[in-house]
């Protein structure tokens, strides 16, 4: 099977699984399960945004949650002021994108090195966390929306059909919207990565100097990637604000930022399906550990009840043992199984190659 056939087969498989989940879940499961799955889908869109920026663009962004949170807050604030969700939805995408474009302009055109890029993005999300956290008083409001500080903003009106204010999207509708968004995001990113732009950003990740010497401006391509990733994260933030009708500053917090990176590390950089699986898997595990009171001795209970500790252990295990992440490692294993054949092929092509 050649690469093209494998590629088409993979796409078809994702499409079938995606549509099956979309259509069957509400028919097979109770509403509480559907609600839980909805947030998995929303977070998977967020995971894809970092998969693009870090996995393909090679930009280590520790502050993807900043754009997620900005999207959620932009939606909430605009919604209280406007009341009809078309413009708030667009703002939830545009505000983080504009913010990323501005921040990225100074980082990329200022030639900030990779490590500092991580530091700056992390700092930015923490600044947002602290700023929003300290806006609890009634004097902090934008239009008729009170920022609420550490209490967050409750009772955010839900999305409606564009331009039809009374046609609101219910809980099941949110599941359909989130799942469809995830599927579309996946295929949209696949198309982007297959385009000249997508292949160029991967080239820049591979060798920035070479790309530059061929006439590509890495600063521009990185800025564009960073901005697209922020827009996507902002959209996920809008969905998230809808899902719980609530946002709070923890959305900008360290735990949230770290989580997104863990999803991508576990799923595998340089893939799209990996971060989706990493995101859903980790969230499922977190929920399962939190929900089921573990049996056994008190010590054992305390250990299993400590979710951050277990997640940390998983992260360390992955970084040490499966550094490429799940999906690339499985792909490598698959390739290793077919190795005798590959080796013979390699031998032949090397003979055929001119000296």
């Amino acid at each position, binding site marked *: 099977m050649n690469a093209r056939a494998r590629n088409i087969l993979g796409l078809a498989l994702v499409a079938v699984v995606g549509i099956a989940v979309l259509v069957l879940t509400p028919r097979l499961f109770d509403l509480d399960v559907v609600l839980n799955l909805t947030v998995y889908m929303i977070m998977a869109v967020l995971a894809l945004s970092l998969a693009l920026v870090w996995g393909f663009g090679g930009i280590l962004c520790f502050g993807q949650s900043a754009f997620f949170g900005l999207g959620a807050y932009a939606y909430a604030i605009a919604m209280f002021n406007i009341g009809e969700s078309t413009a708030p939805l667009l703002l939830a995408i545009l505000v983080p994108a504009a913010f990323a474009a501005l921040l990225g302009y100074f980082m990329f055109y200022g030639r900030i090195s990779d490590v500092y890029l991580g530091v700056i993005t992390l700092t930015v999300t923490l600044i947002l966390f602290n700023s929003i956290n300290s806006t609890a008083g009634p004097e902090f409001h934008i239009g008729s929306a009170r920022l609420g500080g550490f209490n967050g903003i409750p009772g955010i009106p839900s999305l409606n059909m564009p331009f039809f204010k009374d046609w609101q999207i219910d809980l099941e509708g949110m599941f359909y919207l989130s799942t469809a968004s995830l599927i579309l995001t996946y295929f949209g990113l696949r198309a982007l990565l297959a385009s000249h732009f997508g292949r160029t950003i991967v080239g820049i990740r591979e060798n920035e100097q070479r790309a*530059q010497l*061929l006439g590509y401006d890495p600063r521009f391509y990185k800025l564009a990637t960073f901005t697209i990733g922020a827009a996507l994260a902002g959209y996920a933030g809008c969905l998230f604000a809808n899902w719980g009708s609530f946002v709070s500053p923890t959305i900008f917090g360290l735990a949230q930022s770290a989580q997104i990176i863990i999803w991508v590390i576990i799923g595998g950089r340089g893939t799209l399906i990996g971060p989706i699986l990493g995101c859903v898997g980790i969230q499922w595990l977190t929920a399962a550990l939190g929900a089921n009171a573990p049996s056994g001795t008190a010590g054992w209970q305390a250990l299993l009840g400590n979710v951050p500790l277990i997640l940390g252990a998983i992260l360390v295990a992955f970084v040490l043992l499966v550094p490429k992440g799940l999906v690339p490692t499985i792909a490598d294993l698959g390739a290793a199984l077919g190795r005798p054949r590959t080796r013979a092929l390699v031998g032949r092509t090397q003979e055929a190659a001119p000296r």
Partner: protein
Amino acid sequence: MSAALIETRGLGMRFGGVHAVRDVNFMLGERELRCLIGPNGAGKSTFFKMLTGQLRPTSGAVLLRGEEVTGAEPHEIARRGVGIKTQVPSVFDGLTVRENLWLAATRMHRGAQARAAVDAMLERVGLSAIAPRLVGQLAHGQRQWVELGVVLSTDPDLVLLDEPAAGMTDQEVLRTVELVRDINKTKALIVVEHDMQFVRMIASKVTVFNQGAILTEDDVEIIMHSPVVRDIYLGKRAAV
């Protein structure tokens, strides 16, 4: 000679107290081939980096077809038709040979035209048989060819080659000589090379760098028999 393709005026580069390149006045015409030789640390690679915008000169100017490009970004200089093969092969290791060439060719062509250009270039540099392989898995000599193919795919008017024959077998060196002659039919080249046999096979005119400055510039046969040039290569005392 008509207007110079590339010209440097009083070009200098200082790293702290070290004067890596000083007051270099260099000129190359359209479709000219020039070899740069000189001992290690003579400033040849620094000179190349200034020509391609990777280093911003601390003094002097670089002119491309009479237009000043001193301090321009590398991608801007590349877009004006300067291509460089670096000393250590600089290629996209995680991509296949074909993708490497495609990324370069799409600077000039799109769609089917780009694919045709890639196929033609694969043929030209003899990589058709290994087109689907990842460049990171190839031998050093093959990576050199990939980089040559990548550089030529952007169709530059001036090709800079930094030690193109390094790490190649004798047969590969001969093929490189052929390729250089072939490129020179339509393009200008500057080649940095230590292998004097190689230089003799391709060049008529040679520029000798020593201690960051141009020592001399002359016909290859005269350079090869020059006692001064032999001294800077062999007699360390003369270079102190």
